[in-house]
């Protein structure tokens, strides 16, 4: 019963409550600025704690939560994404006069993600995922005066509820097959049997894959993602695209790699199938998108496929690759969304591809940052996306999934069609509309974009340190 193992969670929950309370203070300026400040401070404090507590596994709360390198790594990632989201939302319409609720919900969702990352119990996993989802349902629909925002919220809610039910049913089967909700017990019980020897576990596995794939927006459970990403307020989209995916992969890793390593050969096939489908469908569908957020949604589907390659490998090597790529993915995607947020403020329909004509020339710093992120997403060296793909393909080859690596390569080729199209539009086309407002780049958005670009480069150049961290997390995950 150690409280210390979930200090970040407590800090974030507390910050969320404080932010919500600040929503009702009469002082207008405090109401406006307070929640963001509280959120920022809370996130910073939680980050500090996470970094400070980097170390071996501790088990807290009767085995409900772990605090280990994996959870800390994921928490750091999620917290960074949350911080970026709050920074991006500073002037977002949905958040302007309800800053407290907005920040509070973001923080609560973050808490759900941290919980998912720390979970050592089926119930906690489910609850964490639901906490993050429910908060996101609201955040998606927060611009209630915009029908698209509402549509996004409702679609997310309905598909999300079905997905959650599927996941729940899978978890129930897993529970039924083993008689325990604790991952450690489940692992011990299934440690020496392959999954296919018990059809109940097979069924559970299929359903859990489906449920988590939904959260990670992997094909064919991804179909909500483009609609929701497009409809939701852009900072929230950024949050969903990054943090949610991180949490979903944390759950993937915990359940499959961490708990069921013995059945690796069985679930590998299923996850590899999902990965391949995601890579192909995501990349192909993204090719024809005219809306950048939608395009990034499909790109996110494809990236989920890449991330799943490492999961499918199911080893330290694979986990390390997935974790590294998650970090890289968060940086590049957030950077791109920061660009979209900025552009949306400058022009009408700022999420349309045509809105980016000549963007790079007009705003070189943002343009270069965006280009770096896009090139990294496309897997160009020497950027983080390349190193990630390199590791993922390596993991695939290492586990005789060469075909999956080839699918990944083919997908990357396809992805050039849209990433580079955007790059081309940014630099090679002349600005179409003269009515673009040339506002100064807001500091927060610019900072997010540029620090993401810097991170994308730094992650590749200083890969050794990041890989050590990811490797450490992977080893803790797999060590009994």
């Amino acid at each position: 019963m150690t409280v210390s193992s979930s200090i970040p969670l407590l800090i974030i929950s507390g910050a969320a409550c404080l932010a919500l309370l600040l929503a009702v203070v009469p002082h207008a300026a405090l109401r406006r600025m307070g929640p963001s400040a509280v959120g920022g401070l809370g996130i910073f404090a939680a980050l500090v704690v996470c970094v400070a507590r980097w170390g071996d596994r501790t088990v807290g709360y009767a085995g409900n939560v772990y605090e280990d390198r994996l959870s800390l790594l994921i928490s750091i990632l999620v917290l960074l994404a949350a911080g970026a989201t709050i920074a991006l939302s500073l002037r977002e319409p949905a958040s302007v006069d309800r800053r407290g609720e907005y920040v509070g919900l973001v923080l609560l969702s973050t808490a759900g993600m941290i919980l998912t990352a720390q979970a050592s119990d089926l119930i906690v996993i489910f609850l964490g995922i639901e906490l993050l989802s429910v908060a996101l349902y609201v955040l998606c629909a927060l611009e209630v005066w915009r029908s698209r925002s509402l549509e996004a919220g409702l679609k997310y809610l309905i598909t999300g509820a079905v997905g959650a039910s599927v996941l729940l049913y899978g978890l129930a089967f897993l529970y039924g097959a083993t008689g325990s909700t604790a991952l450690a017990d489940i692992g011990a019980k299934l440690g020496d049997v392959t999954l296919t020897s018990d059809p109940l576990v097979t069924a559970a596995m299929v359903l859990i894959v489906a449920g988590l794939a939904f959260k990670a927006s992997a094909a064919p459970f991804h179909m909500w993602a483009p609609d929701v990403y497009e409809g939701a307020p852009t900072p929230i989209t950024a949050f969903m695209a990054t943090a949610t995916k991180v949490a979903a992969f944390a759950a993937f890793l915990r359940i499959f790699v961490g708990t069921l390593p013995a059945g690796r050969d069985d679930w590998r096939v299923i996850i590899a199938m999902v990965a391949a489908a995601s890579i192909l469908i995501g990349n192909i569908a993204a090719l024809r998108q005219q809306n950048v957020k939608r395009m990034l949604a499909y790109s996110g589907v494809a990236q989920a496929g890449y991330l799943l390659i490492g999961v499918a490998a199911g080893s330290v090597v694979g986990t390390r690759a997935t974790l590294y790529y998650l970090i890289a993915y968060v940086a590049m995607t957030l950077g791109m969304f920061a660009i979209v947020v900025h552009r949306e403020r400058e022009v009408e329909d700022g999420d349309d591809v045509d809105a980016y004509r000549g963007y790079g020339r007009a705003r070189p710093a943002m343009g270069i940052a965006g280009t770096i992120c896009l090139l990294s997403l496309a897997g160009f060296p020497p950027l983080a996306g390349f190193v990630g793909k390199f590791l993922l393909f390596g993991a695939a080859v290492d586990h005789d999934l060469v075909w999956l690596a080839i699918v990944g390569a083919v997908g990357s080729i396809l992805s050039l069609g849209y990433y580079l199209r955007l790059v081309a539009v940014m630099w090679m086309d002349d600005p179409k509309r003269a009515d673009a407002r040339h506002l100064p780049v807001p500091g927060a958005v610019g900072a997010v974009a540029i620090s993401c670009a810097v991170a994308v480069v730094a992650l590749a150049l200083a890969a050794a340190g990041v890989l050590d961290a990811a490797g450490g997390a992977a080893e803790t995950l797999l060590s009994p």
Partner: protein
Amino acid sequence: MGEQITFAVAAIAAMSCGVCVVSLRNAFQATVALIGTLLSVALLFLLQAAPFVAAIQIIVYAGAIVVLFLFVIAYLGERQADLGPDRAWRVQPLALIAVGVVGALGAVALLNANIRLQDKLVTLGEGPDIGSPKAIGDAFLRRYLVPFEVTSLVLLVAAVGAVMLAKRAVQAEGSR
């Protein structure tokens, strides 16, 4: 024997009410049908030695949630008729077939499962106490403290969220 009869009645009631929930177009009627299902399921919980869960099912679920439904239905009034042509008709048969296949696969999985499906469950009292409020409370406060606490966060989100969504809102002066 009594147990079999109870199970049969509850199961049939749950299923038939469930069919009503799915098939009735009128939201009010469907909601009422859902109450039937919820109560039947509560009865099944009782049969499965989960009296506390059954009680919560009735109080929270059938009581609170369904009432909320009814409130909203009343608030919305009669504006849910006049549905246009079904645009998903091409997908629907396939989807239903898929549901059937899912059921079949699930059945295959269950029938081959390693757990003993046909065995009678251990009679209550013979095994350890798992369903009493004491047991539940104990579990919540010892073994499952984190989930217990986090539910509060979930409910907080629900409360805040519902208010924000339902509250009459206009677009704020954003800087877009």
